[in-house]
């Protein structure tokens, strides 16, 4: 296949993935139904995983699917259930900061975008080959071993903390 064709294919895939992601993201923050919000989040995360694969980072893509979508979203759903979040509310779920929030978010996005376009212009990503898992793990267990351990401890702490906090006394 020609390089140009690959480029086109990659760009198409990107856009196919990006549009739903964007729309779903908007959906997360605007929907009245909390469960729908969680599901929209699933779409966004899945799309994210797709982007990873597009970028050749397969390991992190599947980890995202497993952990994020598999565990975190489930956790969210449990939280929704336990806090009896209104699933069919009559009024909106937004507070009175809608317009300031909108303005500020747009502003921030605008600044960022301008900055990014200005900085990175037409830089291209050259893909040679997808990275292999063993490269990733080698990196983790050699260079980044200490952060790894620390993250382990952090998870432990989080686990204990969550248990303690949520106990019924």
């Amino acid at each position: 296949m020609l390089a140009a064709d690959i480029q086109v294919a990659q760009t198409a895939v990107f856009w196919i993935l990006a549009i739903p992601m964007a729309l779903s993201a908007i959906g997360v923050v605007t929907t009245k139904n909390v469960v729908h919000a969680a599901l929209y989040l699933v779409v966004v995360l899945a799309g994210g995983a797709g982007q990873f694969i597009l970028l050749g980072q397969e390991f992190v893509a599947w980890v995202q699917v497993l952990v994020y979508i598999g565990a975190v979203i489930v956790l969210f759903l449990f939280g929704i259930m336990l806090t009896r979040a209104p699933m069919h509310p009559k009024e909106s779920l937004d507070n009175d900061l809608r317009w300031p929030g909108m303005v500020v978010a747009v502003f921030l996005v605008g600044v960022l975008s301008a900055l990014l376009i200005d900085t990175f212009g037409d830089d291209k990503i050259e893909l040679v080959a997808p990275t292999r898992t063993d490269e990733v793990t080698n990196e983790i267990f050699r260079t980044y071993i200490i952060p790894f351990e620390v993250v382990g401890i952090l998870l432990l702490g989080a686990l204990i903390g969550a248990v303690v906090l949520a106990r019924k006394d």
Partner: protein
Amino acid sequence: MFFLDNAWLVPLIPALSFVVILLFGKRMPFKGSEMGIAAVGASFVLACGAAVQWIQRVGDAEEGGTEHAFGAFGAFGRSIGRIGEEATEGEHGPIVESVHNSFTWFQNGGIDLHVGIQIDGLSVMMMFVVTLISLLVHVYSVDYMKGDRRFTYFYAALSLFTASMLLLVVADNTLMLLVGWELVGVCSFMLIGHWWEEKPNSDAAIKAFLTTRTGDVGLLCGVIMTYFVVQQGTGTGSFNIEALNASAAGYLNPVSGTLLFWCAAALLLAIIGKSGQFPLHTWLPDAMAGPTPVSALIHAATMVVAGVYLGARVYPVFYEGLNIGEANINLMAAVGGITVLIGAALAFVQDDIKKVLAYSTISQLGYMVMALGVGAWTAAIFHLFTHAFFKALLFLAAGSVSHSGAHHSFDMKKDMGGLRKYMPQTYVTFIIGTAALMGIFPLAGFWSKDEILLGASEGDYTLFLVVGAVGALMTAAYMTRCIYLTFFGEYRGGDHAHATPHVDEAEHQPDEDDRLPDHGHHGGPHESNRWILAPLWVLAAFSVFAGFFNATWFDIEKFTEWTAPNAEVFVELQHHEFDVLLALISTAIALFGAALAYAYYWRGLGPQRLSERNGLARTGKQFLVNKYYLDVLYTDVIVAFVKGPLARATYWVNQNVIDNVLNYAGKGAMVFGRFTYDVLDQKVVDGAVNGIGTITDSAGSEVRKIQTGRLQFYAFMLVLAVGVFALALWIAA
């Protein structure tokens, strides 16, 4: 040289006698009079001794060249005629230095004050005159003041006066002279007001004192200025008279002409006050309220001539300051000339014999000052010398007339007349005195007055020659009038044989011990006793013979010689040859004046009782009787102005202006204080302080609203800040 070196004894002895009489006089057998006579007698002897020694000294100088005692000015001497040189006209005799004896009394910051004596011809002459006349007055007062209420204090005051006058004449610096001057002024005040229980007497005493005090302002200023004249002349200031004369005469460093003029003017003011010149002569006639011996001693012979003495003593100041040698009119001569005429004019309208003599004294003092003013220095002091004798004589004779002939009254028209029959000796002596005063040859007054006229004519002061001549005419006329009213005609005092005594005299109180000489009993007019007559004859003798000391017609110039000042420190004095023509003319004028009066009074010729018929004449007479309204001017205009409107105006200024300034200052401070409190403190300062608090509070309240407590709001803030920072950093980069 004993008498000359120790001439300080001459004032000292009467001063001690003053103290002794004051303390012990009442217990003495003769109530202090013997102490006074003894003391003044001793001073007189010393003064005669000094005179003799001085004459010897002058004689020695003539024979042996210049006689130098101690003196600082030998090196600067100008030689005037030495033995062997041709004496040209205008030059006289060798240099004879005066005798000095002084000690330093006080030194402070470069100023040395000395107490000392300077004896030369002038001071010897003055000592002689003062002690002689004082002695005669002391003797005269034994009978005249017998039984007086304050006999002892009278003698004490006389002694003090004598001591003060002698201090004045022997002083070698102007400060001592000032001290003596003031002391004689005080003694005059005491003696004029001897019978102060009667108000006119005390008024007269105060008037005399204050009027002479007015002149003393000039003396004080003048004395201060003399210090600076000496400073300019010699380099170091001092009050020494010889230094002053040398500086003023121009023998040392040049002295500013302006300073000399003002010094002379100030001292001239002093002379005007003390010697009764116009316009401060008004005190002299009123001073006749004192006892007659006092008038004779003080207001005829000695105190009033202190001014003339001052003028003679520091003559170079006047000579150079008023330009006597070069002009033909100057301030001093003008003052003297005016005084001659006004004094003589006023003597015509007096009824009181002592007042006639007082105005005559004023007139004669005018002659002396005029003589100094025209440059006739020797003539002036010679006239002082002779005048002392015949004027004292006239006063004492008038006293004799009043005491024994007119029941202690001095009013000629009411109580006298025809007394030559009753009081022949007094009459004769009075005539002698009058003749001397009129200037009849060869009595004393002739020689002295003639020299004055000669000085005026030779010095180009022709105006004053005329004034002197006219004055002589008037003198003769009023004295003749006086003689007529007193000694001729009918005795008019008969109705007052037992009347109450005149206010001028005290009642005679019977003395318990009555050791004083027997006093003639009241009755008709009679001659006085020998205590009174003896001094009269002594003075008459002097009036006749004193003139011969300087009888220039006979080439006798002893007086000039003996009183010639030390030429090294004095200006050059002119001496003139005797002018026979002038002498004849002046004698003729005097006789003419006497003749006029004779015709008017004895023969009744001329316009008798003119003032009763003619309005203009009456106005003129009133003008004279009121003494030119000068007293009115002084008392009612000047003094009343100061007491009245001026004092009131000053009070008004004080109350309304000065007090108001203070009041408004106070009020202003109060208003300002209130303003500061109300506005500045309460509103501005407190407002600012409160405002800061309020602002802080409001700001805080506003800012506090950020703390909503809501998490999402904080997050919003955070994101907003981040966005802004990002933008800023991006733009900056």
